[in-house]
């Protein structure tokens, strides 16, 4: 029982990090006015991409780059459809999930000649550079570098949004694209950049699942985390800090689930234990959401294009 607290903290960070990465990306995209419900697809595709990259290069960092690249590519599909063509953003992003499912399924057979999971690949489970720090060094080095990167990402995003002209441009484009255009801001370019950021960060989240937490890709390993990231965006009311906190909350439910599984002889059937993150997340959303919250970004989901 003594090691329960460190276990929960480590696992909360480990399970919350992929959701937080993806949610921060989704937050940027939605702030610019492009809804992306396909975060699940981005995570799935890049979890697979990262495993492939790591497999071929033998280097996990190359794997991450691959995962991020795939994340950007697949989010660009959504970008083209929803920004340039003005298609229905909710529907278009669902295509990402289908395409990612197909690509990872076909790819598993194509690259690894097996279905269900990939071969074992190089991974990044620990951060040895922190080992020399006194007292907490061992614990800190036991965490994946992704965990530190996600805090860094949060800091950068908060700074960019609050203090830079680009951050202001994102807000303007999301609130009133017409006015933004009149002020000389390239609406489409800003939105494309934001969607690509969302793809890159979703790529980090996906890569973490396959080569941060584990050392292989499995079908179904994303397991709704992309949708939880989406939930974190709405729960955090599009404010990066709160989005991040919400994502970590969802991670905590996963950590609790993992902890209960380690308790010997617990009487709860395993299915109910595995259900915990989903039930708790839904309950948390019920408590925190209020009516009228859903339209914080004025031009969120609105296409701005010559085609309509």
């Amino acid at each position, binding site marked *: 029982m003594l090691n329960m607290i460190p276990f929960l903290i480590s696992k909360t960070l480990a399970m919350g990090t992929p959701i937080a990465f993806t949610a921060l990306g989704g937050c940027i995209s939605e702030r610019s006015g492009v809804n992306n419900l396909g975060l699940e697809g981005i995570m799935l595709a890049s979890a697979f991409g990262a495993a492939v990259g790591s497999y071929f290069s033998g280097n996990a960092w190359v794997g991450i780059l691959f995962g991020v690249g795939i994340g950007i590519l697949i989010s660009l599909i959504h970008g083209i459809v929803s920004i340039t063509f003005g298609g229905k953003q909710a529907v278009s992003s*669902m295509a990402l999930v289908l395409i990612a499912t197909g690509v990872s399924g076909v790819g598993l057979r194509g690259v690894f000649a097996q279905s269900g999971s990939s071969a074992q690949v190089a991974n990044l489970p620990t951060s040895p550079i922190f080992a020399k720090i006194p007292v907490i060094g061992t614990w800190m080095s036991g965490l994946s570098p992704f965990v530190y990167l996600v805090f860094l990402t949060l800091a950068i995003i908060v700074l960019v949004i609050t203090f830079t002209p680009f951050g202001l441009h994102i807000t303007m484009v999301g609130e009133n694209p017409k006015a933004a255009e009149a002020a000389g801001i390239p609406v489409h370019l800003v939105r494309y950049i934001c969607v690509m950021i969302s793809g890159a960060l979703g790529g980090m989240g996906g890569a973490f699942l396959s080569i941060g937490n584990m050392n292989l890709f499995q079908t179904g390993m994303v397991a709704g985390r992309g949708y939880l990231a989406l939930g974190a965006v709405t729960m955090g009311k599009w404010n990066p800090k709160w989005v991040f906190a919400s994502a970590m909350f969802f991670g905590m439910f996963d950590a609790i689930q993992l902890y209960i599984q380690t308790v010997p002889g617990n009487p709860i059937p395993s299915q109910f234990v595995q259900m915990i993150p989903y039930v708790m997340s839904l309950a948390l959303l019920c408590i925190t959401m209020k009516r009228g919250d859903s339209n914080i970004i004025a031009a969120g989901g609105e296409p701005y294009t010559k085609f309509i």
Partner: protein
Amino acid sequence: MKQGRKSFSGLKIRILITTIALVASFLVGGLILFLMKENPVKTYMALMQGAFGTPAAFTTSLTASVPLILSGLAVAVAFKCSAFNIGVEGQMLVGGLAAAVVGAYVKLPAGLHLIVTLLAGMLAGMFWAYIAALLKVKRNVHIIIATILLNYIAQYLVQYLILGPFNSNEGQAVTPLIQKTAELPELLKAPYVLNFGIVLAVAAIAVIYLLLNKTTLGYEMRAVGMNEKASRINGMNVERNMVTAMAISGMLAGLAGAIMVTGSMHRAIDGFSSGYGYNGIPIALMAHNNPIGIFFSAVLLGSMRNGSLLMQSMVGISKDFVDIIQGLIIIFLCSENAIQYYLKKFMIRREEKTDA
């Protein structure tokens, strides 16, 4: 000019856009196969052969289309009322399990038993969708997030019930076989595979078509879907319409699960839906949420699903390739504004040429 615009609207243009999207998707799919150093023609031939190669294969494709028709309808009904129900998968699982339980444990005369079993499935599916609708209306939880989370909850719950309380105790992850009185009658004898489910699916299409187009409820649901604010100002109860649409949607999903159980499996097997629910989205979209169109798009995707098994064993391409095609179809259909824009330009130019 005016005449040109007139001839350019409505059903014809929608069918044209869908056809263009379909062709484009298969072309891009072929390109992907080519880049993977596979032979696209051979792959598509295997897919076709698996789907339509023999009369028996064709009936299997039709049978596979039945849950897809219903899940497409489920997505379309909710979508007409601007509720994006991606929880069809979970609602199907819950409905299928409820049907399996009532079919196996309840004793009723033939005919009545089947009806009660199907109703049990529909009610269970409705209940599961109702939770999501309630969370949306009362607590403003994003309906997509609520329905997807409920999918995972349903998946684990149904798995627990199949492995635990309702297990057949034969050492497998299945419920006991349902009684003969609860089985859907077969329409054709072996080797053909077709049961009464297809009739129910077609009936559901008719009911939903009439509901949407000929009733006040359907009118209100569509009005809410088109313009929530205007509907509210005109005194419609937006929330009630959304809940009703979701409930009907869940009923259709539950019926899909119940038909799978009573028609072909005759019991609930762990993980029996395997994505039928998610396929409802491209199906509804391809048909522009038109109930009659859904029949055709569901049969198309059902055949592809069925054919993909042969493709996997013959060519060695994973059956998940069908998902890529489905995703591409959505992408192209979502680009319909652009397709329409260029089509219009093209048609007007052609008309000007013939005028001159």
